[in-house]
């Protein structure tokens, strides 16, 4: 069990997927609320409300709902919008009005023939100002957890 958060692999998630479509369509799927609403979240999770201010520096907020968990609110900011190839946004859960630990999500869309390779990179730490304490928190906790689980 590897829980050493100091290594890049443990704080960065990378998912690559090839879609039989153009980067434009995929970009649209991420930034058009009506379309995003149809696919974001696993099966059984719905999005009763979402509000996307799709411009750099703009806020987005989404409510995920499922029977088991009720409603969970996630929000963030668009950091980079470079259609149709790249978008970057922050991601943080809101609970009881408090917004917590923030991660950074980057989507890169690369056309290859008549397909598009979409790469999602999620960094455990948004690496924004005054987030250092959180980083230490996660690091030390995961290190501790590593010891516990050994």
């Amino acid at each position, binding site marked *: 069990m590897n829980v050493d958060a100091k290594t890049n692999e443990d704080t960065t*998630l990378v998912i690559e997927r090839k879609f039989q479509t153009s980067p434009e369509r995929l970009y649209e*799927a991420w930034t058009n609320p009506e379309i995003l609403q*149809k696919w974001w979240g696993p099966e059984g999770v719905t999005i009763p409300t979402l509000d996307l201010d799709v411009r750099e520096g703009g806020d987005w907020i989404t409510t995920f709902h499922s029977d088991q968990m009720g409603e969970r609110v996630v929000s963030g900011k668009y950091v980079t919008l470079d259609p149709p190839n790249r978008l970057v946004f922050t991601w943080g859960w809101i609970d009881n009005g408090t917004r917590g630990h923030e991660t950074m999500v980057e989507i890169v869309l690369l056309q290859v023939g008549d397909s598009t390779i*979409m790469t999602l990179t999620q960094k455990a730490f948004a690496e924004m100002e005054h987030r250092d304490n959180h980083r230490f*928190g996660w690091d030390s906790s995961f290190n501790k957890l590593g010891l516990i689980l050994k």
Partner: protein
Amino acid sequence: MQNNIMMTMAALGDPTRFAIVERLLKEGEVSAGDLADPFSMSKPAISRHLKVLENAELIERRTKAQFRVFRARPDTLKKMDSWLGKYRKFWEASFDRLEEVLNDMPDTAILEKKSAGDGEV
């Protein structure tokens, strides 16, 4: 399972709650009073945080002498050890659905937007 992960993440998302779990990991069992000490927060506010953590199964309580003590729950934390792995599931499940949505997505959705943005006659 997915939902529990989301609950766990949401619970840990709060800095106060994160600090509480971190402390319990380090120190084992800690009383409610001692847990509240480092925070300039009312007792009820701390209690609410503890309740959220309990509901997320991140911590549990028991009574020791007449004190309430809390400790971290390794079972839940174990699930968190690959928390990025949980996000992986979240995204991959989403992308499965995206694939279907793309199939049904009309070309016009993009074309209309583009021509509207061009402002050309």
